[in-house]
C-alpha cells in the first residue's frame, strides 16, 4: 500500500507519515481499518491454533497430548479470542475501511477516538493471553464464564481476564459510537437513510446493539470482580445471591452479541450477491426492516440458552416462541438473496463463492438453531456437540466466510491490484471442504450424546471425531494460503480498475484503485 501513496500528492493533501509513527499516531480510517484487519487475522491464527490443540487431543479417545486442565484453557481461550479478537475487530476494520467510502465521507467522524479504540485492543489481548503463562493457568471456565466456575473456582488469572474484557468492551463501544456518528452526520448530500448501502445499514444497527449490550457485559464482569475481591455475593447463594442470575445477565449481553457478529455479515452478502448477479438487491426495504427486527428480537430471547437451568414452564414457552420468531426476518433475508440471484447473470469469482456458501451454510446453522430453540428437545441437545456444530455453522461459514468474501471483494480497491483468482478459488474450496468435514460430523456425535468441553470421549464417537480433526487441520492450514494471497496481492498483480467488478455499484467504486489516502474531501452528490 505504501508504495503507491506518493502518487497522490497534491496541494491540499499529504500522504501518510513515514515509519512506525504512521501507524501509532494515525487517524486515517484506511490505516486504522488495515490495522484492525491485520490484528484480527493474527488473533484468528492464534485462536485457530488453540482449536487445533483441541482437535488434536480429540483425534482419538483417551488422553494423548494435553492434560484436562489445559484442554479447558484452550476451549475457553479459543472462544474468547475468536469472538472478541477475530470476528468483532475484523468487522470493525471493514467498517473503518468501507463506511466512509460508502457514504461519501472524508474519514470517520471521530478520527482520534478511532485511533484510541484500535490501540486499546493489543493491550487487552496481551493481558488476556499473558494469563496462559501465569501460575494456575489461563481462564478455564468456558468462554461463557458461568459463575461459580468463574468466581469461586476460578484460577487467579481471572482478574486479568476481567480487565481484558473491560478494555475490549471500551474499544468496541468507542468504535460503535464512531460508526454511528459517521453514518448519521457525514453522509454525502442526497444520500438518505434508505439509499445507504446495506453494509452501512447493518453496521448502523450493529453499532446500536454494541452500545446497548457491551455495558451489560462490563457490568457482569464487574460483579464477578466484586464477588471475587470485595466480598459481595451477586452470584453466591451462600450470601443471598444466585448463580442463575449470572446466566441471565450474561445472556442478556450474549444473545445480542451473536447478532453483532452476524449482522455485518448479512451486509457483506447483500453487497456482493447483487454485484455478481448483475441485478439490484431484491427487496432492499425489507432487508432493512428484517435487520432491525432481528436486532430488536435479540433482546427478548436470551433465556433460550438456559432451557436446562430450571426455568418455569411459562418462561420456557415464551423464550421458545420468541426465538422461533427470529426465523421469520432471517428467512426474509435468505429468500431475498436467493431472489437476487434468480435469473441473474451469475459469475462465480471468489467473493461470490464465499457469499453463496455463506447463504447455504448459514441457513444450515439457522436450522440447527431452530432445532435447539425447541425447549423440550433442547434438554437432549444441551451442552452436546450438537450445540458446537450449530454455532460453528453460523460463525465460521457465517461470520468468517463473509469476512473472507469482503476481503476478496474489496482487496482490489484497497491495494490497487487484483488478487490471484486461481489461488482464491483454491482457498475457497479447501476452506469449504475443511469446514464441512470439521463441523458436519459434530451434529451426529452431538445427537448421540457426546458432551462438549470434555477432553476424552466414548469409543463410539471415535470415527466422526477423527474426521472432524482431519477437517480442522485442513481448514487451519488453508488459512495460511489466504495470508499468502493477501500478501501477494499487496505486492503486485494485475492493475485494478476503479469499478473493479463489472456489476459493482456504490460510491466506493467511483474512487480510483487503490483508494487514495484521503478520499471524498469534497462530498459527492448522490442522486
Amino acid at each position: 500500500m505504501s508504495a503507491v501513496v506518493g502518487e497522490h500528492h497534491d496541494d491540499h493533501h499529504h500522504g501518510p507519515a513515514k515509519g512506525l509513527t504512521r501507524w501509532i499516531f494515525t487517524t486515517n480510517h484506511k490505516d486504522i481499518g488495515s490495522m484492525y484487519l491485520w490484528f484480527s487475522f493474527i488473533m484468528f491464527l492464534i485462536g485457530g491454533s488453540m482449536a487445533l490443540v483441541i482437535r488434536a487431543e480429540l483425534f482419538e479417545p483417551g488422553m494423548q497430548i494435553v492434560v484436562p486442565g489445559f484442554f479447558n484453557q484452550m476451549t475457553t481461550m479459543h472462544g474468547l479470542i475468536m469472538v472478541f479478537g477475530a470476528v468483532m475487530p475484523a468487522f470493525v476494520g471493514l467498517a473503518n475501511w468501507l463506511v466512509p467510502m460508502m457514504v461519501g465521507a472524508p474519514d470517520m467522524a471521530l478520527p482520534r477516538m478511532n485511533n484510541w479504540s484500535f490501540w486499546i485492543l493489543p493491550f487487552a489481548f496481551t493481558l488476556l493471553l499473558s494469563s496462559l503463562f501465569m501460575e494456575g493457568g489461563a481462564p478455564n471456565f468456558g468462554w461463557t464464564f458461568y459463575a461459580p466456575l468463574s468466581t469461586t473456582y476460578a484460577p487467579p488469572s481471572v482478574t486479568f481476564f476481567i480487565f481484558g474484557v473491560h478494555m475490549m468492551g471500551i474499544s468496541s463501544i468507542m468504535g460503535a459510537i464512531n460508526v454511528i456518528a459517521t453514518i448519521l452526520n457525514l453522509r454525502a448530500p442526497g444520500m438518505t437513510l434508505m439509499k445507504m448501502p446495506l453494509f452501512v445499514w447493518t453496521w448502523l444497527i450493529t453499532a446500536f446493539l454494541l452500545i446497548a449490550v457491551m455495558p451489560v457485559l462490563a457490568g457482569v464482569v464487574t460483579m464477578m470482580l466484586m464477588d471475587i475481591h470485595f466480598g459481595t455475593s451477586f452470584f453466591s447463594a451462600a450470601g443471598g445471591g444466585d448463580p442463575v442470575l449470572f446466566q441471565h445477565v450474561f445472556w442478556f449481553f450474549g444473545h445480542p452479541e451473536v447478532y453483532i457478529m452476524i449482522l455485518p455479515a448479512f451486509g457483506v452478502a447483500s453487497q456482493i450477491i447483487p454485484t455478481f448477479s448483475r441485478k439490484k438487491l431484491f427487496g432492499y426495504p425489507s432487508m432493512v426492516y428484517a435487520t432491525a427486527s432481528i436486532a430488536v428480537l435479540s433482546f427478548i430471547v436470551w433465556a433460550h440458552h438456559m432451557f436446562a437451568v430450571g426455568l418455569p414452564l411459562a418462561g420456557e414457552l415464551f423464550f421458545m416462541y420468541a426465538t422461533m420468531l427470529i426465523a421469520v426476518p432471517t428467512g426474509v433475508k435468505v429468500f431475498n438473496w436467493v431472489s437476487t440471484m434468480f435469473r441473474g447473470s451469475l459469475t462465480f469469482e471468489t467473493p461470490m463463492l464465499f457469499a453463496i456458501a455463506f447463504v447455504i451454510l448459514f441457513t444450515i446453522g439457522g436450522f440447527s438453531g431452530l432445532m435447539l430453540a425447541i425447549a423440550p428437545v433442547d434438554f437432549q441437545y444441551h451442552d452436546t456437540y450438537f450445540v458446537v456444530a450449530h454455532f460453528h455453522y453460523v460463525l465460521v461459514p457465517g461470520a468468517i466466510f463473509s469476512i473472507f468474501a469482503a476481503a476478496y471483494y474489496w482487496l482490489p480497491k484497497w491495494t490497487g491490484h487484483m488478487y490471484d483468482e486461481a489461488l482464491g478459488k483454491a482457498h475457497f474450496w479447501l476452506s469449504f471442504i475443511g469446514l464441512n468435514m470439521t463441523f458436519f460430523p459434530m451434529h451426529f456425535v452431538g445427537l448421540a450424546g457426546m458432551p462438549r468441553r470434555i477432553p476424552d470421549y466414548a469409543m463410539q464417537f471415535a470415527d466422526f471425531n477423527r474426521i472432524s480433526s482431519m477437517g480442522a487441520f485442513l481448514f487451519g492450514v488453508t488459512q495460511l494460503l489466504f495470508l499468502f494471497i493477501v500478501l501477494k496481492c499487496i505486492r503486485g498483480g494485475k492493475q485494478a480498475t476503479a469499478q473493479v467488478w463489472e456489476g459493482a455499484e456504490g460510491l466506493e467504486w467511483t474512487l480510483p484503485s487503490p483508494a487514495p489516502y484521503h478520499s471524498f474531501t469534497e462530498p459527492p452528490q448522490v442522486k
Partner: protein
Amino acid sequence: MTSDNTSAGQSSNRKVVVWALGIVVGMFGFGFALVPLYEVFCQVTGLNGKTGGRYEVSTTVQVDESRQIRVQFLTNTNENMPWQFKPLVREIKVHPGEQMKVEFYAKNTTGEMMVAQAVPSISPSEGAEFFHKTECFCFNQQILQPGEDINMPLIFLVDKDLPEGLHTLTLSYTLFDVTERTTKTKS
C-alpha cells in the same frame, strides 16, 4: 477533512457522542439493576423456589381443616461443608393456616470454629409464595465451636390460599460455609 472540521459538523458529532454515552452509562446501570429486578421478579412470582423473609402472623388466621398438605424437609451441605446437617422430622402433615414448629440438627464436626448459613428453597416453585416462615434459623448465621451441636427451630405455616392442585411441598435447605466471608468482613 472539510466537513467534520466545521463547527456545525463538530457540534453534531458531539451530540451523537453525548447521547450514545448516555445509552452506554444507562445500560451499564441496567446491568446492575437486573440484580434487584431479578430478586423482585422471583419473589413476586415465586419462581426459582425463593421463599420470602420473616412472615408476621395476624391473630385471625383461620385454619383450613378441609385439606392436609404434606411438607417434606430436605437438607444438603454445600461442597467443602463438613458439618452434619439433618431434619429431626423428615415429613409432616399440616392444615393450611396452621402454625407448625419443626427442628433441624447441625453439628460442627471440625476442630475449628465455623460459621454457616442455610439457604432455603421450595419445590414446586408454584408453592413458594404460599410457604411462610415466622421463625427460621436461616434468618441468621449459625456459629458453632469445634464439636458443638445445636437444634435449630423453624416455625412455619402454609397459606390457606395455596392452589388446590398442590398436595406436597418440599423445603430444601443448603448449608454453606461462610466462615471466611464473615471473618473477612469483621476484620
